[in-house]
């Protein structure tokens, strides 16, 4: 019952990256089983391990959890990263949903056909610069505290920091406009558990390169 969580996914960021970060921030060591071929995905499906035939899937506490949000919530609950009461939890959930909406367009970007990339990049920059980053900068400004909710690290902070890094890779100047977000990112990155995760040899994944994209397209039979 108490083994390390096992993450089932491909060797890339995709939808699993926020989960890796959150486990890392909670100081939880985990194992990864990487899918490399379509057969690897089929096996998981045939074994009945995937409730909706989809990954990510995380084996944790005797369960095979799917759905990124559900997995993040379970980890947050278990490791005290979900606020201290219902009101804080509601705010954390609200912020997480917004971050997840932005992540939808960010995470898919490496896998788009080249003719669709320009429009998508434009959309990512627009949504990040004009909708999501200002919203969270405003939250931090409104209370002047170190974290988004209740002056304590939560899953919303961790997920936001993941997106801050990923968007900056696509829009290099963006963080200059958001000093409080930049400070939050530094603060979270310097937490001992997170620092270890980010070091060379840590489990953080790089931006998906051509080789990774090819493997993924094959596994999921994308364009």
């Amino acid at each position, binding site marked *: 019952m108490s083994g390390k969580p096992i993450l089932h996914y491909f060797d890339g960021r995709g939808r699993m990256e926020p989960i890796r970060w959150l486990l890392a921030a909670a100081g939880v060591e985990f194992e990864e089983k990487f899918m490399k071929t379509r057969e690897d995905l089929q096996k998981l499906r045939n074994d009945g391990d995937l*409730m909706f035939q989809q990954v990510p899937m995380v084996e944790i506490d005797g369960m095979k959890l799917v759905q990124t949000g559900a997995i993040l919530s379970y980890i947050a609950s*278990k490791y005290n990263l979900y606020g201290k009461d219902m009101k804080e939890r509601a705010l954390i959930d609200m912020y997480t949903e917004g971050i997840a909406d932005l992540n939808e367009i960010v995470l898919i970007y490496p896998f788009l056909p080249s003719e669709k990339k320009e429009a998508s990049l434009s959309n990512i920059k627009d949504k990040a610069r004009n909708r999501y980053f200002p919203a969270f900068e405003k939250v931090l400004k409104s209370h002047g505290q170190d974290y988004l909710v209740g002056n304590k690290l939560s899953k919303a902070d961790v997920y936001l920091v993941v997106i801050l890094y990923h968007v900056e890779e696509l829009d290099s100047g963006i963080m200059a406009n958001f000093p409080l977000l930049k400070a939050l990112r530094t603060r979270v990155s310097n937490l001992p558990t997170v620092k270890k995760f980010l070091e060379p040899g840590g489990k953080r994944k790089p931006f998906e390169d051509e080789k990774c994209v090819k493997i993924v397209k094959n596994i999921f039979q994308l364009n």
Partner: protein
Amino acid sequence: MPPYTIAYFPSRGRCEVMRMLLADQGQSWKEEVVTLEAWGQGTLKVSCIFGQLPKFQDGDLTLYQSNAILRHLGLSFGLYGKDQREAALVDMVNDGVEDLIRHLGQQLLCNYEEGKAQYLKELPGHLKPFETLLAQNNGGQSFIVGDQSSFADYRLLDLLLNHEVLIPCLKDFRLLSAYMARLSSRPKLKAFLASPEHVNCPISALLKI
């Protein structure tokens, strides 16, 4: 004076689930209808954290993001499973329905008739996990998770009810059909589903259905 206010477009959309939940829990709430014209004017949009509706008020707590609102109500009324493990399952089911709704929305928005035909082809595969969950839980006689109602039940019911209107598809899903009939006949929910405020409310303002 009810503590709950829902501000949304004149449609079921992302709010009917929370309405069904509140009605079934014997709660009253205030509706602030936002017409597309009023929304286009911009003042309200700018005040919403991500520029989107629904906007929900629970006393002095203002929330956005329909799934966050649903979870808040789930916690408020003990509709989140009996422990953390059931809670995880409730979350999985809700998010599985969310995926399906997004998929359907995308198909219908691109090209209504073609999208509908394609979606209908894929639908048995999409509904199967929910039929399986029912089968594995007291032979489908109970709720989608465990033996008490959760917000995932309202979410799934909303999906099934809308499908019956748009794309009747449950004839091959014995347990889901029975589940839908059983939940819809809960007295307070039945009254809400028969009420003009539900019946006269279009499913989607955007799709005009």
